[in-house]
């Protein structure tokens, strides 16, 4: 038969065949480099991994050794931006992982790994359990504050920050409280207090400075003080720690100011991280660079492959991608709504407002409008978007 019956073309088949399977090939020569590893086996970090791994393999029942290796893997995941070590950490703790009442160290790590996968419910349950056992546990307290912040549960977050003050570093406890206050109608005084606190603590660690400077930049940026924000981001960059969040926040500032060329040069080494590749692709599009199409396709493939495995971790980025790089307001709105159900930071609010505006569906933005008024949000940009939405017919 020359005409074949193709009357069944299940959507899944199309989805699956679209991106996940390319055309396998035989590389041209033995010298062809197929993959660049994050480090060489002789690097100190890799040596440390091997040392801990060997130790653990000799004593798999030793909780202290297992916890040490798991923490090492978790740090590695944060540093490299590759989620694989998070899975290795879980495997290291396999003996205790499924217990209803595991040791405190395991509860804490289970919570860390849970929030890494955006399983906020599971992570909070573990943290609550741990904090009942050990009230004021600083790491548990600070992680719970961070999760509550992302979920826009500011009263709970503020309580966690107070708890952090009992046994945690005083500077970080203060920074924690001020970060919450900056989101609940006291952005300007919080900004001044946080900047002052940092100035009086020159002995703070680089990591602490990085965290506070990034928060200062974000608060200033939200208040429309773009010059101040840029100063903070530059100070943070000068610390010399490569941080995906800092780069993403600074890139957003530059993109808002139409400084696409500077964005592209800031992120030129950031292709591996979805979060940064999105900003890079937006900049390339603004500059009409030839790489724009390639970056867009790479992002599409990543979101597609993540969905195949059943993950939806980067819906905020995917919503921005869908709105600004694919030009599909309705699909972007659905993603932004789904994202808002999981995380509710100002960035998440913004993309939902922008998508609702582009799709001309003001009703869809109602949850964000409620959030804005409930917490006395002071961001000019969000208020302006809300106003524009208000002018649309309902």
């Amino acid at each position, binding site marked *: *038969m*020359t*005409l074949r*019956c193709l*009357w069944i073309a299940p959507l*899944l*088949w199309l989805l*699956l065949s679209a991106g*996940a*399977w*390319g055309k*396998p*090939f*035989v590389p041209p*020569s*033995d*010298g062809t480099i*197929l*993959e*660049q*590893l994050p480090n*060489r086996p*002789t*690097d100190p970090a890799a040596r440390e991994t091997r040392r801990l791994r060997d130790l653990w393999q000799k004593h798999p029942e030793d909780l202290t050794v297992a916890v040490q290796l798991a*923490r090492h893997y978790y*740090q590695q995941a*944060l540093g*490299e*931006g*590759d*989620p*694989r070590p998070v*899975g290795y950490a*879980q*495997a290291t703790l396999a003996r205790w992982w499924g217990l209803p009442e595991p040791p405190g160290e395991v509860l804490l790590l289970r919570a860390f790994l849970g929030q890494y*996968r955006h399983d906020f419910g599971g992570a909070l349950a573990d943290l609550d359990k741990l904090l009942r056992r050990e009230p004021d546990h*600083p*790491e548990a307290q*600070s*992680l719970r*504050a*961070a*999760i509550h912040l992302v979920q826009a549960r500011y009263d709970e977050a503020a309580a966690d920050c107070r708890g952090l003050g009992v046994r945690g*570093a005083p500077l*970080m406890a203060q920074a924690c409280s001020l970060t919450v206050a900056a989101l609940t109608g006291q952005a300007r005084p919080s900004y001044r207090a946080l900047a002052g606190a940092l100035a009086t603590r020159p002995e703070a660690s680089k*990591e602490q400075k990085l*965290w506070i400077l990034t928060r200062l930049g974000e608060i200033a940026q939200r208040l429309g003080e773009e010059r101040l924000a840029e100063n903070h981001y530059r100070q943070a960059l000068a610390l010399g720690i490569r*941080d*995906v969040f800092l780069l993403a926040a600074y890139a957003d500032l530059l993109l808002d100011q139409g400084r696409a060329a500077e964005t592209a040069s800031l992120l030129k080494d950031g292709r*591996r*991280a*979805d*979060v940064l590749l999105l900003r890079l692709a937006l900049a390339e599009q603004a500059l009409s660079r030839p790489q724009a199409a390639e970056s867009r396709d*790479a992002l599409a*493939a990543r979101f597609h*492959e993540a969905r195949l*495995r*059943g993950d939806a*971790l980067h819906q905020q980025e995917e919503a921005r991608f869908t709105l600004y790089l694919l030009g599909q307001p309705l699909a972007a709105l659905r993603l932004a709504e789904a994202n808002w159900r999981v*995380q509710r930071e100002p960035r998440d609010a913004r993309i939902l407002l922008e998508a609702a505006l582009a799709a001309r569906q003001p009703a869809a933005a109602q949850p964000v409008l409620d959030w804005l008024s409930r917490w006395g949000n002071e961001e000019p940009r969000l208020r302006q978007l809300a106003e524009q939405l208000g002018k649309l017919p309902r």
Partner: protein
Amino acid sequence: MIRLLLAGACLLAGFAAHAHKPSDSYLAFRVAGGEVTGQWDIALRDLDFVLGLDTNGDGAITWGELRSRHDAVAAYALSRLSVHSGAALCPLRVTDHLVDHHSDGTYAVLKLAARCPDAPQILSLDYRLLFDVDPQHKGLLRLERGERTLTGIFSPEQPRQNFNLASAGRLATFLDYGGHGVWHIWIGFDHVLFLLALLLPAVLMRGPGGWVGAQRFRPAFWEVLKVVTAFTVAHSLTLTLAALEWVQIPSRLAESLIAASVVLAALNNLFPVFREGRWVVAFGFGLLHGFGFASVLSDLGLPKGALLLALVGFNLGVEIGQLAIVAAFLPLAYGLRNSGLYKIGVFRLGSLAIALLALIWLAERVFNWKIISP
């Protein structure tokens, strides 16, 4: 020190820090009879973690390094996957090694083949790659059989899964194949044109001075019924014989004869040889058309457990499609039978056009040319 750092790092970078997705492997299988073939894409980063591929320690994996470890890669992978047809093992082997790029890096591609003792009704896969070292790992499966595609996700919680290849249920099979039958008659222009060529004269009668319209509807209706029934009985017969593999003729021969049958049926309208008893022609050539339907059915693949059901479903689908065409044709043709438009435009020119088109098909099929077919 780590405690403090972690507290800082958590507030600092706790969220959405994924550079890309966690580890996945991509498994694609195609089942045809008892043969299972496919490929397995496994990230080089993952293989490096368990097997250590960077043999010279320069922080990069080259094709040469991977090639020198192909046996180890194959042995490792095959020890983590098994395929069963029901309870019987279908032994897997690696037939080739390639590589491919995915969104998060380069993957080793293992071409796989397995032979099951029989055509699997239930294909069971037991997948345990990397689960012991990375419980976040997932295996993404795409399983094809005929035109059906099943998908599955393997995780440590679900390492073993069964895939029912015998189709969902009896009713579903029946409807499924019925649908194929309807669709096939609709897009199988050669069958439709053959039928039309035989039906065009049904509303006409041979008068002394040439063709005239039939006087009454009833004889025209009976004529159509006889032709359609004869065609149906004939092609059902050969379709069944061929589908059960009792009688087989080469498909190119069958296709060529089908095209020839259309040419002859159309020419018979212009230069009548068979004036009466067109149902005999319908029956005789209908036998050929049955072989054509059978080749579609063998492309689809018949479910072993529900062979008869699928066959009857497909056949009924063909009849329903055919009846729809007749139901549209007969009233229209009967209404127009006395007009010049019908007698000249439809009957003569239409028959001529059908004959020409079928002649081209005939040439294509006999000589394996491509003139008008896609």
